């Protein structure tokens, strides 16, 4: 992650278990305009205390699933990230 590059502010939505762990349904976070998905995931995990569900969540950028952790994600100001762990109850 290039700490000196340009940064934008994006919305983060938390669902299910991640909402409990982050202790909020939504937040905002500064992210680099260009970042690999795995670095993005690490940033969110450490910022919001999501370590216990790191490997078991859907990370969606503007309502699209981020397929591959080695992909590069490009951000614009005001983009939306959603963190969606599985629910198993019924």
């Amino acid at each position, binding site marked *: 992650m290039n700490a000196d590059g340009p940064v934008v502010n994006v919305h983060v939505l938390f669902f299910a278990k991640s909402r409990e762990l982050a202790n909020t349904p939504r937040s905002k976070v500064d992210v680099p305009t260009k970042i690999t998905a795995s670095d993005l995931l690490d940033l969110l995990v450490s910022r919001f205390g999501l370590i216990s569900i790191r490997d*078991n969540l859907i990370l969606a950028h503007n309502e699209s699933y981020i397929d591959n952790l080695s992909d590069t994600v490009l951000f614009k100001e005001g983009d939306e990230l959603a963190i*969606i762990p599985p629910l*198993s*109850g019924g």
Partner: protein
Amino acid sequence: MIESEVDSERSKLKREIAELRAALNRKEQCLRELEVSVHTNARAEQEIVGNAVESPGGAVRVHTKLTNDDIARYSRQLILPDFGVQGQLKLKNSSVLIVGLGGLGCPAAQYLAAAGCGRLGLIDYDEVERSNFHRQILHSEDRCGMPKAESARIALLQLNPHCEIHCHSRLLYSQNAMHIIRGYDVVLDCSDNVPTRYLLSDACVMLRKPLVSGSALKMDGQLTVYNYGNGPCYRCIYPVPPPPEAVTNCGDGGVLGAVTGTIGAMQALEAIKVIVGLGDVLAGRLLIFDGSSGLFRNIRIRSKRPNCHVCSAQPLITELIDYEMFCGMHATDKDNPLQLLSTDERLSVKNYQEKLQAQPHLLIDVRPTAEFEICQLPDAVNVPLVEILDDSYLKRFGKQLEDKQLPIVLLCRRGNDSQIAVQHVRNRFPTHSVRDLIGGLHAWTNIVDPSFPIY
């Protein structure tokens, strides 16, 4: 009539009604058993003659016409241009397996039976109990203790006697899953645990069955259709199971019946769309329902994962595995007692009541506040586990905690969280007496005070 006569007449009538109801239940059970055995014999004969469909319990004949009763009963959906007579016939010739007759399975089964699905299979190992009623709306007070599949069957036949219903009142696991699932066209995952979700996904990939997967907890719901068209399977999305401590079940986290009802009804809708070939099936998309804000969202999820262990062109897993082992969890939503502490580090409820309750001590109930408000022991103070773990309790009890002679007793609902709390508090105060109540409030009700409420 004087008041005492009214009372005795009332209890006499209540008793007689209860006896009649029990007799009625017994007769109905006999009738069901008779019908099942007649049905099984008839099928065995047809198999000998050789005109039965291959699948176990498969549809023996194909309906090509609607009856007058069908037309009257389904008129409001028959006139839907996209559904029509062909849609109704497809539904009448279809079979759907519903796994779990709980908060999701009840409404899903209800809408499918009502809509005229020809054959429903119901799987549930569990029995009806009082804590089910708020969301499992096919079950009723007089069927407490009955297998859930049987109870659901009774309610569904009242709704639509033309629906053929097969009950599988046992746990679905690797050894019986393929055999049971093979006989159905579509599978609904209405289960409540992670191992069953992986088991159903793998089995449905192997048998090429669409899997309509719903889940719900608290105020949240999720819905998608796996293994349909180019869409992914459960493993494509979640290749590794979550750690057991990150999984909350409805018994611990709570759930609102209208939330499971919303998702269950939508599972029925997706199953109907798959069967009839109607609209855009929710595959490759995950619907997320946030009941607290009333928001539905659709997330585009991936297509098949090219290296998926099960559904890719070169699968590594080609037969069912041990899913409880794979997930490190049981295939039920029942709790397993934690054993973090040895017995001498803990207190039985009896011992607490006899030896300590009347003495000076600090009794800390570590349940969430909403649960503490339901019921609490005398003199208990509520400090939710999170406030123990983040040490914010220290400020509140600073003075009392200085006294090393004051025993600290921690408790919770079942004696699991209280052990975690003991470990944490003892690290901070190694010379204090810090123990917890074995079995928690459930043990208190069972052993000390039967009038104490249980939830």
